């Protein structure tokens, strides 16, 4: 019968998020109170599919005691928000998330100061806010809604808007020794796979995937899992299929019929574990994971291939051609 050898492999990885090396890594966020009492979050975190539009309002809502549906995020137009840096470097959750946290906290303070005034209090200390209601904790009948506050501010032709900036901490490295603190924070993970290697054709099939992902804290576990799945499958493609076939500067595989990425038929069940170890400097402890989720996949698969057939594949992708020729060159015979 077909000679299928099975193997397992694991890999760890680490990933320093952010621009790094002392380059100013700045995000700006604005929180406004609309005239009808709604919270508007203006932030330049582009929604590229990663979920920025979902988690930024979550961070803001958490801080203000709202359900996230009550926060409207605007990120579509350079006129309506300030620069929050690029949606890359796994930096939006940490960097822009921090700016959102700072702006939300400052907004809450500003609301309390305004509310104290309208409620005739001596100070804003001791006020609380949840679901759009502001009250004095020691005397709960002293209360007003955010909608009432907004209408009063609007009546006076004023607006309540708060903008805050977060800048991440890294340093440049010494050009000769590399000494320095190039990134912060780092995200870690440990992934494992099981593979079947068809020793007659060199085809590798990943049969199981286990992904243990450090996230600091998951703002939204559904989105974290989605990132893990997507990163795993992109890593699988990188390990087994993907190569642009550049020859003399020409991309030979410049079509989907030739540049092979995984389909639903090529993926295993992906078991996911989220490990939480909150990072103090991060918004609610959350670190970036968009890139880290891809990083350990290919080496785990390559280690599993070795475990299955005793041959090291040192060049990705581990195509059937490379695997089979490596088997033959190693003089291995599987019966």
């Amino acid at each position, binding site marked *: *019968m*077909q000679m299928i050898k099975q193997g397992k492999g694991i890999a760890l990885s680490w990933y320093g998020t952010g621009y790094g090396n002392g380059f100013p890594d700045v995000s700006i966020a604005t929180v406004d109170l609309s005239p009808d009492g709604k919270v508007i979050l203006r932030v330049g975190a582009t929604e590229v599919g990663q979920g920025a539009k979902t988690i930024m309002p979550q961070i803001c809502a958490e801080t203000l005691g709202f359900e996230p549906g009550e926060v409207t995020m605007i990120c579509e137009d350079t006129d309506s928000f300030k620069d929050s840096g690029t949606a890359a470097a796994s930096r939006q959750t940490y960097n822009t998330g921090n700016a959102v946290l700072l702006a939300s906290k400052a907004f809450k303070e500003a609301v309390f100061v305004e509310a104290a005034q309208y409620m005739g209090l001596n100070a804003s200390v001791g006020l609380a806010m949840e679901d759009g209601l502001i009250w004095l904790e020691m005397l709960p009948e002293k209360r007003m809604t955010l909608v009432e506050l907004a209408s009063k501010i609007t009546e006076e032709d004023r607006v309540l808007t708060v903008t805050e900036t977060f800048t991440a901490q890294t340093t440049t490295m010494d050009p000769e020794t590399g000494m320095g603190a190039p990134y912060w924070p780092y995200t870690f993970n440990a992934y494992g796979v099981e593979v079947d290697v*068809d020793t*007659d*054709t*060199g*085809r590798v*099939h990943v049969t199981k995937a286990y992904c243990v992902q450090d996230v600091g804290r998951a703002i939204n576990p559904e989105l974290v899992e989605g990132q893990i799945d997507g990163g795993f499958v992109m890593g699988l493609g990188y390990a087994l*299929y993907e190569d642009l076939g550049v020859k003399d500067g020409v991309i030979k595989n410049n079509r989907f*019929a030739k540049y*092979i990425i*995984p*389909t*639903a*038929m*090529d993926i295993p069940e992906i078991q996911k574990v989220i490990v939480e170890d909150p990072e103090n400097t991060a918004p609610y402890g959350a670190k970036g994971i968009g890139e880290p989720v891809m990083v350990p996949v290919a080496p785990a698969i390559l280690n599993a291939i070795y475990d299955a057939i005793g041959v090291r594949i040192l060049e990705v992708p581990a*195509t*059937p*051609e490379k695997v*089979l*020729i490596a088997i*033959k060159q190693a003089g291995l015979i599987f019966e």
Partner: protein
Amino acid sequence: MSVKRVFRAESLESATVLLNEHAPEAQVIAGGTDLLVQIREEKNRGSIMVDITSVPELQLIDIKPDCIRIGAMVRFTDVVENDALKNLVPGLWSACKSVGSPQIRNLGTLGGNLANGSPAADCAPPLLAMNARVNVASIRGQKEIPLTEFYLGKGKTALQNDEMIESIIIPVSTIKPVLVSFEKLGLRNALAISRISASVCVTLDENAKILTCGVASGSLGLNPVRETELEEWLIGRTLDEACIKEAAKKFGDVVEERLAGRSSMPYKREAVQGVIKPALHRVLKNFKDMR
């Protein structure tokens, strides 16, 4: 080139008349899965399309005691959903199921798969192995061409400009049970163009001795071919583990010679063995199951 006109044929006769009338600019459009890619790249042969998707007689699957007739417009999915064909011609059934994706199988037709002359056509190896014939229609009437004489090199077939495939005819042995299998090696599990495919069609006596044998391959040359050297070697032998192993090696040698000098040879020489082995194993298993 761009498409100037599309004529919708309502019958076989109107299709052949349109093809003749507008030859050589006219060409048939059926499932369109290859042709629309060609049109996009401006590599289509003709600027006038004769659309045969609505011709009723080309949609038929007719199973007779001595032959199966499959209309040119029968789509891969029609074969996959046909339980009778799954039992009678499992090699063809597997080949149809292995085509691209559901979307492609829902459009692509058996006639088109053969007519475009691709070396990687999934249906060709099982049909070749089963000694299938294509029935070709034109205003001059109909004629049958054995599939072995149909392919004339890369992208070239025996079809004249004003001819079209009407149906595919698969002879069915009435005496001995025929065992057919199909294996394909693609770069992934779906949306995969075959890098190597092979089909085996044998009749065996009660001791598993090979009485008749058809082996055909895809993507190992300019067009799908019958592997006559391997067939001759197999006939008269008893199909067992040892035979399969040796046959695989033999196939490797054949391919090594055929692809000598090509960069794909060192891999394909080995990998064809991994394709022919399961194809032979499957027929052996079916044989044992039947007994």
